[in-house]
């Protein structure tokens, strides 16, 4: 049985796809057979972030409508043999997703994979609800900014009432907070919500803090998940998050402001 993890946020542009790609890759690097599914039907982007956009032949909706076999639609990652991608359809809309259809695909993937990462679309409509419905765990991606925090709380409410686990009265979906685009310098200046602030408001366990980093844009430019970038702060932060997801206890990094050296201060470098 695979563990189904939804990456969700409510708000758009906070880093869901970046996170899905990084966490999926991280789990694969750690030896777990992992598939990342793009649930953003109509606005496919996971393929671009993971650098396999030119290898898409069949998609999620093709499999759902039995126009293609699951194995035909799955794209094997070129960097890691444990990693697979199931792209979203670019030509259909979210109504193409049905609960039974999604369930069948997840059941079949469950037979061979250890982890299924569901990359949710933004919003709280059908696509997002479908992405989280079957989840065992949820990674709630949040920016330290008012609208993102509020939307995260909203999505937590949906996880707690509209997921399969909630409807059946099973053990609730395990929730994780992933704070992204974090800028310790601005936090120190009192101009950005701190990790503690967001934790106090949302009251869910912290999985990771990803610093605002140039490496993230560079990674998406290249179509290579940031976790593969050796030496990138955001990459390390994602690796730590993956370790915590696997149950390890690891100290948080990149949440304190880096001390500027004398020379740097003199030269006014940031």
């Amino acid at each position, binding site marked *: 049985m695979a563990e189904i993890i939804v990456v969700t946020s409510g708000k758009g542009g906070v880093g869901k796809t970046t996170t899905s790609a990084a966490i999926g890759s991280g789990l694969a690097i750690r030896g777990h057979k992992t598939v990342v599914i793009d649930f953003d039907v109509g606005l496919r982007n996971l393929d671009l972030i993971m650098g396999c956009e030119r290898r898409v032949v069949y998609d999620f909706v093709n499999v759902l409508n039995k126009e293609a076999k699951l194995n035909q639609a799955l794209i094997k990652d070129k960097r890691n043999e444990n990693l697979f991608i199931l792209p979203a359809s670019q030509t259909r809309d979210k109504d193409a997703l049905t609960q039974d259809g999604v369930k069948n695909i997840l059941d079949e993937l469950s037979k061979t994979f250890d982890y299924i990462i569901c990359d949710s679309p933004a919003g709280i409509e059908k696509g997002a609800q479908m992405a989280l419905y079957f989840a065992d765990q949820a990674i709630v991606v949040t920016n330290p900014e008012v609208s993102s925090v*509020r939307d995260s*709380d909203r999505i937590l*409410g949906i996880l707690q009432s509209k997921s399969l686990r909630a409807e059946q009265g099973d053990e609730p979906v395990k929730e994780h907070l992933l704070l992204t685009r974090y800028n310790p310098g601005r*936090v120190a200046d*009192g101009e950005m*919500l*701190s990790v503690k*602030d967001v934790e106090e408001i949302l009251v869910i366990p912290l999985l990771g803090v990803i610093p605002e980093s140039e490496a993230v844009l560079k990674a998406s430019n290249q179509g290579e998940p940031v976790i593969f970038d050796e030496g990138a702060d955001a990459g390390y932060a994602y690796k730590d998050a993956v370790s915590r997801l696997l149950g390890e206890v690891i100290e948080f990094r990149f949440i304190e402001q880096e001390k500027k050296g004398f020379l740097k201060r003199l030269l006014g470098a940031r």
Partner: protein
Amino acid sequence: MSIFDYFLSKKPKSASLAKERLQVIVAHERGARKAPKYLPKMQQEIIEVIKKYIAIDDSQVSVKLDNNNNHSILELNVSLSKK
């Protein structure tokens, strides 16, 4: 106010303002989420009954349902304006 206070007192930073605003709105929205579906309709009907006897408008009535561990409290507040 001592001279130290003068130098130490700063304008509240925007992050603390953000936190305060979020705490208020999130608590409010969580409350609304947990409320049973019949609450808005019941509130409306209660207001109609009161209106038969006293001239009030909707904003003078608030209905709140608080859940504790083993019991719930339905709180009804009607503020009557002085003539």
